[in-house]
């Protein structure tokens, strides 16, 4: 988004003093997110890094509009993703940890889901889905059902599904963690290159420091309950010593 003269660029995602509490029967209130403020600007790739249970998924669900904050406000492109849920149709796409393909749809049928929701004509959505499957190396597998595809291929279909809607914001919940290391690494590289090429804003949840370095141009380390412990930009110009220093700081924050 381009800012007008004298106006700061509007963030794509903004958490403004957000707290999220969950009621647990018999255990009282659980604080998942604590007074968190965060801004994510257009075209950035932010890796949210934190230990299990630190509230990353809660943040993710609030951006996706699946959860409402208890206090504070979450906005995406200046609007409330929870209350204005339908207005984000086609503007936000999610890549989940597991592929979540509908077993009764072929690969191309799965990629078409988001396009169907956007009301595209059958031929148009078929062509678009076909293009994305080909781009992700799945040409010739369009009519295969998910059970006939390998784990890596299935995750490629789910990535094609997310990109096909041309949403400006991608939310990725550890999309490569269920894959073997080699497949995960290859897919991660392709994914980052696609995000760059298509100039998407992307929010990645990850447990892995290495993955955060490979994916993000910004790493946000969260402590439990979700508050920012460390927020650092990862410039491609960083030398090995600077990267090592950042890595050490991240490790410190995660083990604190």
């Amino acid at each position: 988004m381009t800012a007008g003269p004298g106006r700061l660029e509007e963030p794509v995602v903004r958490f403004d003093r957000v707290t999220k509490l969950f009621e647990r029967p018999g255990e009282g209130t659980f604080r998942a997110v604590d007074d968190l403020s965060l801004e994510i600007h257009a075209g950035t790739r932010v890796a949210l890094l934190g230990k299990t249970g630190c509230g990353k998924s809660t943040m993710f669900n609030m951006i996706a509009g699946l959860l409402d904050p208890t206090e504070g406000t979450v906005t995406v492109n200046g609007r409330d993703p929870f209350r204005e849920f339908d207005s984000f149709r086609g503007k936000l796409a999610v890549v989940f940890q597991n592929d979540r393909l509908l077993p009764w749809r072929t690969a191309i049928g799965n990629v078409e889901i988001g396009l169907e929701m956007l009301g595209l004509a059958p031929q148009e959505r078929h062509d678009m889905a076909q293009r994305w499957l080909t781009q992700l190396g799945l040409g010739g597998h369009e009519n295969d059902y998910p059970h006939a595809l390998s784990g890596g291929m299935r995750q490629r279909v789910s990535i094609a599904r997310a990109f096909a809607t041309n949403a400006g914001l991608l939310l990725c919940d550890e999309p490569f963690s269920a894959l073997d290391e080699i497949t995960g690494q290859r897919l991660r590289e392709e994914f980052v290159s696609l995000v760059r090429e298509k100039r998407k804003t992307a929010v990645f949840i990850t447990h892995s420091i290495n993955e955060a370095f490979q994916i993000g141009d910004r790493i946000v380390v969260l402590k439990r309950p979700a508050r920012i412990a460390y927020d650092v930009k990862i410039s491609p110009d960083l030398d090995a010593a600077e990267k090592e220093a950042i890595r050490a700081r991240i490790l410190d924050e995660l083990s604190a």
Partner: protein
Amino acid sequence: MSATAPRPNGAPPGAVAAARRYGEVVAPYLVLAAVWQLAALAFPSYLFPPLDAVLARFFAIVTSAKQFTDVLATLWRILAGLAGAFLIGGVIAFVMAQSRTMDRFLAPILTFFQGIPALSWVVFAIIWIHGIELRIFVIMVMTTLPAFTFQILGALRAISKDLFEMVLSFRPTRWGRFRVMVLPSILPDILTAWKVNLGNASRVVVVAELVGATGGIGYELLQQQQLFDMTGALAWTLQLVFFVLLVQRLLAWIETHAFRYRAASEHSL
């Protein structure tokens, strides 16, 4: 069989497989027919009439407009009753799936209804309702409604949360959600419910017609009983049996085509 065993008449493997498949389908019926025919040879024909007499009577019914109207009336009653129970049960199941309060309120009522014998519904309907068609429709609906409702409710509750969340992330309309996620998820259970209830309905409709109608297969069976005509009783029964088999085949065909996405590895048995 040894891998090198010669195929009969040198037939190609596809033909052998097809012959075996058809053989497996036909064999149980051939055995049943053979046993009946043996019984017909051993007992008087008024108890066990020979198969040719039964088949002749069967075709006489099919080719007689007046008699076949009775068959069609019964089939229509079965399908109408099942469709009614399916639609009402489907709506109730959706309401129960959406609201815990409604679930707590309706589940005991349905369980209570499930305990009422079909014959009791026949008696209630004869006392309450004068119109024959409405009477039979009510009997059919009331006897199959709880099963349809519980089966659809179970299917709705078994919808994958992960997949539902995925679909939701694309912000579907209510109709889009139903079309893309809900309907394909519950369709296998809906077909199973139809298969199970079809058998129940074909038994209930005969009882309902036997005591509460002036036409239909059940009514005709009553006539055969009064005439002590076993050939007629069998021929009329077979009309219903063939109908049930035909619809079961149709449902199996739909299953094969609609659920071709299922991997062979998904079948544990």
